[in-house]
């Protein structure tokens, strides 16, 4: 199948949508499909062979943060040329309601268009101000995919339409085969040692790092040799660590994709104390793929990924004492940790990229069948 994918954000800036597009494209290519990705990039920027540059992205304040976007007549012309030359069977755009290449591609495309909605943007300006505009865009989209239950609910409630839920993929082998960092996780036996891990923006309150710190301040004194392996962007000086926690913390800073996998292979327990705002919980599937038993807040999104608590332990949101108990119980019980990791390995197989990409291909085929034509066969787009 010939597939055109549009990524609205620059591939040189790390982000969930960009990683998703890259992994999906590479998985589909490995399955034997022809894939071209249109993304904002300079012409002289080094790019993977399957990416077509759509020109420099412009920083635009959007939805409370700064997005780097392409929009305007030159981008529109490039998008039309890419569509024309690509001779695609199906067009797959990401986040089509942001003013971006994705929106331009939807408006200039003919035939079957599949769109993936990543964020659960309930208060987006596009939705608030542009309901009629959104309708014109949405009626050109044949198949809608939401990456989480929350994103799907936004579709149903605010955009007046269905969406099939297909989760974010994870490259299981990349995590499962990573080499642990030298000297980690170290000894872990009843009453002694054990490494817990945390990865993410620890300065951001909703990531719940302070809850983990309070739990550790409680349990570390009872447990000699217990350590925290911490990674993420930010400055450790910005958080207030009690001395007992500070002296047993190893801080890796911001880690590469490679080191992230190695870090997750280096812990006895991975902790996700998030207090909210997570629509999917990508980090959980990554920890599960790495074989790290997970302890997570009982958020709906986490509960779903952790198979109701069978593929990882859950604790009440914000409850540091419960978290501390769960951590101690699990560090004492190697058998239970193995059980959780084994069940997690079975659960995470459904999130492996080849499995997820096969589900996406079903949507492509359904969209082509629904319209009875491919993108290259479609009627010419209305000029307006």
């Amino acid at each position, binding site marked *: 199948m010939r597939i055109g994918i549009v990524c609205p954000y620059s591939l040189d800036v790390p982000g969930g949508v960009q990683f998703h597009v890259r992994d999906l494209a590479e998985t589909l290519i490995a399955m034997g499909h022809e894939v071209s990705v249109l993304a904002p990039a300079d012409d002289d920027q080094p790019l993977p062979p399957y990416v077509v540059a759509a020109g420099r992205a412009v920083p635009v304040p959007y939805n409370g943060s700064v997005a780097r976007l392409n929009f305007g007549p030159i981008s529109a012309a490039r998008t039309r040329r890419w569509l024309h030359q690509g001779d695609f069977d199906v067009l797959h755009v990401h986040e089509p309601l942001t003013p971006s290449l994705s929106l331009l591609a939807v408006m200039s495309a003919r035939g079957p268009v599949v769109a993936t909605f990543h964020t659960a943007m309930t208060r987006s300006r596009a939705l608030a101000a542009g309901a009629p505009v959104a*309708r014109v865009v*949405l*009626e050109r989209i*044949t*198949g*809608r995919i939401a990456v989480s239950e929350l994103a799907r609910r936004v579709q149903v409630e605010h955009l*007046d*339409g*269905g*969406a*099939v839920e297909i989760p974010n993929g994870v490259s299981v082998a990349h995590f499962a085969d990573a080499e642990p960092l030298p000297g980690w996780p170290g000894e872990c036996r009843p009453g002694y040692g054990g490494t817990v891990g945390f990865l993410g923006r620890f300065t951001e309150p909703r990531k719940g790092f302070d809850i983990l710190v309070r739990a550790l301040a409680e349990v570390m004194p009872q447990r000699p040799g217990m350590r925290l392996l911490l990674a993420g962007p930010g400055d450790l000086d910005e958080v207030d660590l009690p001395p007992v926690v500070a002296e047993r913390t190893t801080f890796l800073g911001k880690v590469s994709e490679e080191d992230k996998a190695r870090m997750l292979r280096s812990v006895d327990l991975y902790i996700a104390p998030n207090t909210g705002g997570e629509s999917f919980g990508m980090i959980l599937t990554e920890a599960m793929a790495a074989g790290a038993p997970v302890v997570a807040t009982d958020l709906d999104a986490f509960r779903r990924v952790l198979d109701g608590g069978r593929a990882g332990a859950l604790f009440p949101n914000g409850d540091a004492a419960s978290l501390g108990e769960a951590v101690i119980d699990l560090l004492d019980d190697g058998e239970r940790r193995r059980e959780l990791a084994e069940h997690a390995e079975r659960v995470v197989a459904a999130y492996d990229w080849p499995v997820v990409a096969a*589900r996406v291909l*079903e*949507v492509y*085929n*359904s*969209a082509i*069948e*629904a*319209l*009875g034509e491919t993108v290259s066969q479609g*009627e010419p787009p*209305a000029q*307006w």
Partner: protein
Amino acid sequence: MPGMEWVIGVVALVVVIASYVTWTAGRVDRLHLRAASAGRALDSQLVRRAAAAAVLAETELAGDPAGDDLYAAARAALDAREDDREASENDLTRMLRKQALDPQEPNGAAVIAASRRVALARQMHTDLVRAALGARERPLVRLLRLNRKHARPAYFDIDDPTLSAV
């Protein structure tokens, strides 16, 4: 000449209105054609699902009373008249839900996959019918009867056919 501005203004207005009407008529046509096409795609996915269910009934469930019931439901779905098709398809969904389908077994996997494809086809059909109905209701479309070429599209109202053993 003082009348000239008026002439230009009126001509420009007529051009704008005519373009908008043409665009709207094209949109109404496209949405109706798409809804009809999605209806045919949904029909073919429903037939595939019923066929997969019949194969499962005759192979894995051969000799089992549940297999006979499933086969009967699959036949009923294939033979249903248009006015009781929705009910027949829902019966088939209920029958399939009663089976513990093994995704490792090819005939079971085929039914699970076919059910997923029905769910996708139905969702796309529903979205396109909604868009077509929305376009029909617009005042301009009703005033100029731009929808007169097309029969009013109807939803295909069935329960979610997705099977839990995914």
